[in-house]
């Protein structure tokens, strides 16, 4: 344990990690209870689906317990856990996207004739579409920072990018959303 960079970590976190490393089931549960809500919330924000969010959260903790021996304390436990969570979620979503792309021709064929009469999407739908249209890195940073309250430091650790890049991604994401939702500006002013 001496090799771990624990100097700036709270004692409780150090003890918790050491107990989990020793295979203490109570410590595992404690770690889970401490972080599960935030991990689940972020997974849900990214996936937009309860089943997927559960899957991602479960996979995150399964992997975290398996890999706890690799935790060196260079970042906080929360950051380390969220980096696993983001990796699991983004990889999972990429996989789903690939699957959907393969199925797209069937879906497109089935939806023929149902598109013409659709009403104009309201703000909520436009917002969802605008966020969806953001690139993965911009969307992740926007959701983490603006919706889930992560700091740039935390985002940097979880996504493995410099803090400046995180700030830049957020700036770009906001700019794209402003452009996409410019129609609504007059409504908001009024």
């Amino acid at each position, binding site marked *: 344990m001496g090799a771990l960079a624990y100097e700036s970590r709270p004692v409780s976190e150090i003890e918790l990690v050491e107990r989990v490393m020793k295979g203490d089931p109570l410590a595992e549960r404690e770690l889970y209870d401490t972080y599960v809500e935030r991990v689940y919330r972020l997974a849900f924000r990214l996936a937009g689906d*309860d089943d997927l969010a559960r899957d*991602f959260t479960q996979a995150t903790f399964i992997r975290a317990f398996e890999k706890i021996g690799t935790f060196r304390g260079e970042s906080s436990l929360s950051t380390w856990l969220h980096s696993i969570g983001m990796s*699991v979620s983004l990889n999972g979503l990429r996989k789903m996207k690939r699957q959907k792309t393969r199925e797209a021709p069937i879906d497109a064929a089935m939806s023929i004739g149902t598109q013409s009469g659709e009403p104009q999407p309201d703000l909520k739908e436009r917002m969802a579409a605008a966020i969806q249209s953001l690139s993965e890195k911009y969307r992740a940073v926007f959701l983490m920072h603006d919706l889930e309250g992560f700091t740039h430091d935390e985002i940097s650790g979880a996504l493995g990018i410099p803090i400046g890049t995180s700030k830049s991604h957020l700036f770009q994401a906001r700019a794209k959303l*402003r452009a996409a939702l410019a129609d609504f500006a007059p409504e908001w002013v009024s």
Partner: protein
Amino acid sequence: MSEEKMDEMITKAAASYNAPPAVVPKEEMWAAIMAARSPGPRLIYGSAPRRQSRFVATSTRVWLGAAAAALLVTAGAVVGRWSAPAAVAPQAVASTVRANPTVVEPGQAPPPVTPDLPAEGSAPRNGSRVIEPVTHVASNGSRSAGSNGRSASTGAAALAGRNATSAYQLATLTHLSDAEAMLTSFRSRTDEKMDAAMAKWARDLLTNTRLLLDSPAAADPRRRQLLEDLELTLVDIVQLSPGAGAQDRQMIEKNLDQGHVITRLRTAIPAGMQKGS
């Protein structure tokens, strides 16, 4: 409208985007995590978790592919190394006249090299023949092809054993990966018309599952249990007729959930590869 104000409004409006539920299903997820991590068959009766992980560590599949490739390359290299000496054993030298194959008794030195060897590349003299390989007679009268013949054959046997084990392991992992993909597709299918395609896919997998069950790949009791559960699930899917009711499908999905087949498949794949990597 200033950018700050607009950003504020956007953030406010975006709050409802993929808004998580107020209550996090902690206990259900914990039960699923414990089920996935516990060894052995994971059949939970009664208060089983609602569903199991449909997704466990996608990136491990990348490792699976890389590890499989590395395994094949390594096996190829090893086979090459072991088979190389046997290939050069019988050397034919076009040179000296020798009426009969030379037989060397135990303890007897091999015949000396004939001093009148022609220069390399020159034509053999009239009446010369290709020399036969020297054959040593063992004390029990049996003949061996060369000094490294026995060790080579022992090594080849060991290699064959190792290769067979690796081949079974690779085949099993590939099969489990395919089965996991099939079952995931089955659960996430959106159209009942896909049932026929699923049944065909399941039939192919069923054949391989049964072959693996009868092979050394099923020697491990946990893997055997997994293959047996997989076999039952695949049989259900194969028997699902295109016009089957929703109840039949739900029954299969319920069995999948209760047996944690998909989760067990997913945990089996990376666990096996991680150990080897």
